[in-house]
């Protein structure tokens, strides 16, 4: 399938370039670890409090560190005017967009999967029992972060104050997804399955992913070419 190959080409290009320089991933990882460390000054790993804030803390770490990576997504095309060449190439804008989404998704997820054990160690949380479900929530939440972060990375690529505008646009829109992910993660990371009441949050997260993936794909040509 030609389309799939085009998406894969873009994804592999981004991943190869990032793994050579490791700019985004190093910054993102350092930032994540730093937030985890800073927060440890606030909380004693005393059981009950930790249990309640764990989901929130984790997703704050993921969202903030993730934005560093997502900002690079289209910004990496600016030196040498590479964005021109990508837009001129006969691939659909959606293929370019999805290719970058998948690359960012992998990078952000990698930082999350490193942060999780660190979190477990610093805060003495046993996150392994429900790992499959936890991983599922990570995937859904990270996709939400990625899709919104990438489309706005494309939107803000040429603006002054890009580094300020990207978080300003991304975080408010992400709120429903972040809230869902936080709520679900709080139970799962403490080894508890998702309670009945909280299944609505899972639906909200999935719904968010579906709706905004669709909206992004519809609007991507406008964002890229104006």
């Amino acid at each position, binding site marked *: 399938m030609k389309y799939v190959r085009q998406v894969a080409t873009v994804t592999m290009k981004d991943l190869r370039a990032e793994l050579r320089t490791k700019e985004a991933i190093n910054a993102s990882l350092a930032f994540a670890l730093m937030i985890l460390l800073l927060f440890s000054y606030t909380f004693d790993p005393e059981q009950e409090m930790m249990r309640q804030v764990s989901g929130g803390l984790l997703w704050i770490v993921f969202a903030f560190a993730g934005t560093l990576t997502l900002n690079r997504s289209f910004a990496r095309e600016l030196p040498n005017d590479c964005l021109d060449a990508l837009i001129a190439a006969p691939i659909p804008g959606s293929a370019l967009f999805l290719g970058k989404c998948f690359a960012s998704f992998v990078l952000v997820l990698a930082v999350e999967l490193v942060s999780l054990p660190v979190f477990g160690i610093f805060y003495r949380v046993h996150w392994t029992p429900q790992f499959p479900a936890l991983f599922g929530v990570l995937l859904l939440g990270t996709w939400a972060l990625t899709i919104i972060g990438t489309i706005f990375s494309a939107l803000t690529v040429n603006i002054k104050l890009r580094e300020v505008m990207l978080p300003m646009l991304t975080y*408010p829109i992400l709120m*429903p997804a972040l809230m869902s992910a936080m709520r679900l993660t709080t139970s799962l990371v403490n080894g508890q399955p998702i309670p009945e009441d909280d299944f609505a949050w899972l639906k*909200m997260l999935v719904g968010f992913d579906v709706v905004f993936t669709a909206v992004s794909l519809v609007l991507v040509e406008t964002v890229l070419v104006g």
Partner: protein
Amino acid sequence: MLSALFDSSVWTALAAAGVAAIASILFLRSRNFLYDSLALATTEIGLVLLAAGIVAGAIAGRLAGGFWWTWDSRLTTALVGVLLYAPYLMLRRAIEEPTRRAASAAVVSIFALFDVPLIALAVNWWLARRTVPAPFSAGWMILPVAILGAALAWMRLRQEQQRRAQDAERRTAQEI
């Protein structure tokens, strides 16, 4: 009365968001800048009304229960609404070229509108455990607030159109 004011402003702002999103879609299809001006005008006025409403709601909460912020789900949703649409205005200020600005702003407006119901639901679920939401109490006040909003938006639209006309005149003068 203050909480009725708050509720009215929330509904008016919601209508403004809807109009802005529709205007944004129409701009993207037709590239007619009237729609861009309309989207800008309604978003600005909606945001102003919403902010004023939040203040009213906060005061109402203080008078009723003694706290400035009651974490009432409607009040919190309204606040998130402000955070959602303020970047629209910031973005416009950050892009100078008019076509690019209008198109980018239109995209943000559309994204924001899709988010509004999700935010309302999410905040409601989140806070339902903590507070009992106050009964909806806009009542008759919604009419004057909505009319005020529409009038302000209309004035803002006229102002924006005038500004564009002046720009166009300046443009033509340069061509001669």
